[in-house]
């Protein structure tokens, strides 16, 4: 360690690679923390965890007993075990007794991306509520037609404040905080929507995963989705080779133009009018919408490509915006290249994944490791080879959500056993770094 610092000082190691080395070393020593604990006041299983995006200081958790709690993960509320174990109790808790609180389980609780003054919760009681953090009051209420499975706000948004809500209903709804109404609905899925994520490279692009197994990319400025991911469209490697990409583009164009002559199946990537619709012979399909004239943007609703053989239960866009990870109820995790829309065929060794609830995945910043809740353990996979690096066993029941704080390299996981566990890089207790706060009575917030 000191040798590396010396190397950094002398200029032999560049600053970024030094930081990455330290971070990956700490990541490899992650284990159940023996010096930090989060005391969870929840009486139901924990469905959602998120650390705020601005300071990575406050952890927001939503549980099945309609309670929401916020914890300060950097400053402990009290110490135990002779000052060695830091206990973090909740800063505040909102539960069913609150006059405007949720009545049923909360499936998703997220921070307002700009600051921690607001947070948004979505619940099985069909409501999405926006709360003021300081007064713990409901500021806005949006009624949805079904149970809300996931809510998401774009971390990059500079010109809109839309909350994307995925519900049991087949349409994705965008709720606008500025106007207080549901401003847009996106149709295309054929079953409920379990996961919603905003793209990390553009504030207008939304990715949704449905119970029908499809993953759709939406540009909210237009109607209809512009891409449906198909698991049979694959590429061998992280990015497609340059030459091959040209061939596939020309194929899709020619298939679109002369669909009667060439027997090749047309590429289903773009909402291309000529490719998808063929004259039906004999049988009329069950939906019966082929004869209808559709808006060109809505033709993608005909595209029935699936990304998974079951429901899509988890989605995560990597922070560089280039790759998308999806977990499905067919117990497969797939890595997709966002730009080409293809399956990179990385095989993540999972045996079983939870099928009934959406799960929350987490990735490290330079996407090196992905954390996936697999039943009662959380597994960390190397993102490019799919091999299991680490397994975190600590929960007594199924794990639903995990959240990685890249600043401190800490992993927070919540599960059906009502506990939030903290996984930290190992540290020697004799370091005595935290022995100070026992005597230090001041608690200035910086």
């Amino acid at each position, binding site marked *: 360690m000191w040798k590396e610092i010396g190397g950094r000082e002398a200029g032999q190691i560049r600053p970024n690679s030094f930081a990455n080395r330290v971070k990956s070393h700490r990541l490899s020593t992650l284990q159940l923390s023996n010096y930090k604990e989060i005391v969870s006041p929840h009486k139901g299983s924990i469905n959602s965890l998120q650390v705020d995006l601005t300071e990575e200081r406050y952890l927001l958790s939503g549980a099945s007993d309609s309670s929401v709690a916020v914890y300060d993960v950097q400053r402990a509320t009290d110490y135990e075990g002779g000052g060695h174990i830091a206990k973090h109790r909740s800063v505040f808790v909102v539960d069913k007794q609150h006059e405007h609180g949720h009545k049923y389980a909360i499936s998703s609780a997220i921070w307002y991306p700009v600051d921690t003054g607001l947070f948004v919760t979505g619940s099985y009681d069909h409501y999405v509520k926006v709360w003021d953090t300081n007064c713990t009051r409901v500021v806005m209420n949006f009624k949805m037609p079904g149970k809300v499975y996931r809510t998401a706000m774009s971390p990059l948004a500079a010109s809109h404040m839309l909350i994307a809500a995925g519900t049991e209903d087949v349409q994705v709804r965008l709720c606008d905080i500025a106007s207080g109404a549901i401003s847009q609905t996106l149709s295309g899925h054929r079953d409920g929507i379990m996961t919603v994520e905003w793209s990390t490279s553009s504030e207008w692009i939304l990715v949704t995963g449905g119970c029908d197994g499809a993953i759709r990319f939406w540009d909210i400025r237009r109607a209809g989705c512009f891409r449906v991911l198909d698991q049979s469209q694959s590429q061998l490697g992280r990015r497609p080779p340059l030459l091959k990409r040209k061939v596939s583009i020309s194929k899709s164009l020619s298939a679109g133009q002369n669909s009667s002559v060439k027997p090749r199946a047309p590429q289903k990537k773009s909402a291309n009018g000529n490719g998808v619709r063929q004259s039906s012979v*004999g049988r009329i399909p069950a939906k019966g919408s082929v004869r209808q004239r559709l808006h060109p943007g809505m033709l993608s609703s005909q595209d029935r490509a699936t990304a998974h053989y079951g429901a899509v239960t988890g989605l995560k866009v990597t922070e560089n915006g280039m790759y998308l990870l999806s977990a499905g109820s067919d117990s497969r995790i797939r890595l997709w290249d966002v730009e080409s829309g293809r399956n990179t065929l990385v095989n993540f060794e999972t045996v079983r994944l939870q099928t009934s609830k959406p799960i929350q995945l987490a990735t490290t910043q330079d996407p090196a490791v992905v954390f996936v809740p697999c039943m009662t353990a959380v597994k960390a996979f190397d993102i490019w080879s799919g091999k299991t690096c680490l397994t975190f066993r600590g929960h007594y029941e199924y794990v639903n959500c995990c959240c990685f704080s890249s600043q401190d390299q800490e992993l927070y996981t919540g599960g059906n056993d009502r506990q939030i566990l903290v996984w930290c890089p190992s540290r020697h207790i004799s370091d005595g770094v935290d022995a100070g706060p026992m005597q230090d009575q001041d608690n200035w917030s910086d």
Partner: protein
Amino acid sequence: MKNDTNSDSSKPKKRRRDEEIEAESSSSDRTLSLEENLTFSDTLVALRIMRAQFPHIDKVSIRPFILQSQLYSSVNDRTQVDRELESLRRERVLRVFKLNTGQDDHAIMFLDDYLNQIECVVKRMEEKKQVNLEVFEWFQTHVLDSKLEPSVGHEELCSLLSIVGKVKDEHISLLINAGILTRQLIDPDMYWFAIPNIGSVLKGLSQGRKEIISFLNRRKYKEMMLALLEKKHLRFSPLDMRFHLRDLIGSGHLKTIHTPTGLVVQISKD
């Protein structure tokens, strides 16, 4: 495995000779020990060897197929398996079929074997004096060649078959009756390619899997030496133990542990 630290030089030579004789006799048998042949270096090598080791089933005439989970247990890197399978599929060396026995089960068959299997089915139908048999030829030349995925949509199938002649509902019903196309619960509008005459084998597959898992579950520590487990005979499955073991290890239900006395197979706890 050999404890010959205290013996003098003549004894190890004797033991080695004995082992050589044993190895020769075992290789001259048809059955090679699974323990020594669990992993291969390359997907194509693994596929060819497993095709050769496919058990002979009496009542059903079926060409050898390999399950994708068997490949995962035979080659160390799963991503490499997936990518090599994809490139072999694109080169039309083999075809992948989605089975309906449980989640994410896929069967792989070499293309020549599959075409042979279709031939057998067509011959049997000819004997029964079926009409409209030209649809099988259309299917082989147009659909199989251009559709490399395991499924095909209804409209696409009709358009591909209509290139040659007029396609009617009876043609598609014939394909389904022959067992070449099936429908699954996932999508009402989608046909899935299937291997004809495979039904009884798939039933044996599920029953064999259950039998092995329940057998190991009943044991005290839920584990057994691979060398001993291999020799057991399955009551409910026409496929042999080695086939099932590769499949269960690859799908993650069983795991192998290296011990000083050999490989031990254990039920995995996740």
